């Protein structure tokens, strides 16, 4: 029984690291070129990603986020784009910010 729990935890950890690698690769290929490794953007030219968490909290914010050309045109599946946007919201949120809202693949498909 103990072995089964250990194996189960190891599988969970492995799937978490695979998901993390996928988010980092997607961020590099879809966002990092303009927003930078730290998500800070270029003052006056490219916006910071610190505000993404706030956008996920409301329907109007999610609609606005999915209307950004780089988001709408991202060469990712709906599920993968939803996961990337949630990851960006958490990764670049200001210190002490509350957990951002969730985004489903279905909502991405409807809004993009």
């Amino acid at each position, binding site marked *: 029984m103990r072995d089964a729990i250990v194996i189960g935890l190891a599988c969970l950890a492995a799937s978490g690291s695979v998901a993390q690698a996928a988010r980092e*690769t997607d961020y590099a290929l879809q*966002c*990092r070129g303009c927003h930078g490794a730290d998500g800070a953007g270029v003052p006056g*030219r490219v916006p910071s990603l610190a505000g993404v968490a706030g956008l996920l909290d409301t329907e109007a914010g999610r609609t606005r986020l999915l209307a950004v050309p780089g988001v709408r045109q991202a060469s990712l599946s709906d599920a993968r784009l939803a996961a990337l946007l949630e990851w960006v919201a958490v990764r670049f949120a200001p210190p002490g910010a509350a957990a951002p809202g969730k985004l489903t693949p279905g909502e991405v498909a409807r809004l993009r």
Partner: protein
Amino acid sequence: MSRFDGFTERAARKLAMHVSRRSFLARLGALLAGGAALPLLPVARGAAESPPSDDPTSCDYWRYCAIDGFLCGCCGGSATACPPGTEMSPVTWIGTCRNPGDGRDYLVSYNDCCGKGYCGRCFCNKNEGDRPIYYPHRSNDINWCAGASTSVYHCSTAVVLGVAEEAQPEK
């Protein structure tokens, strides 16, 4: 002489009885059509591709698989650094290239160097994963110096950011 004439006549008649003109024309036509199709075989196209190079001033260097511009390594800089007197654009596009050394795909950032006129040396135009300009974040046809303090393009770098793990296959 009459024996030679007789031999030639018999040989000609035998040939005419066994080989028709239609068969000759069919074989000649097949030979001509087949010969014309030879350059279309995939073997010929494969042989024409350039092998990867270890030279960072060659367009066939593996990390240049999607570079469009002058190699900074030929312009006083390197594959990862801008030449003196130029600045690296803070915005760029990022693609992936496969390293033939280990068979893995790597993230490559094609930052432009800006502030001087065209370098004019080692021009390369490789387009693996490049997208049309209406997908600006995945296009190498853009002057990325637009994000720098000057939009005057000089040359391009190819900075490896890391391994592209778990990348979604392109459609």
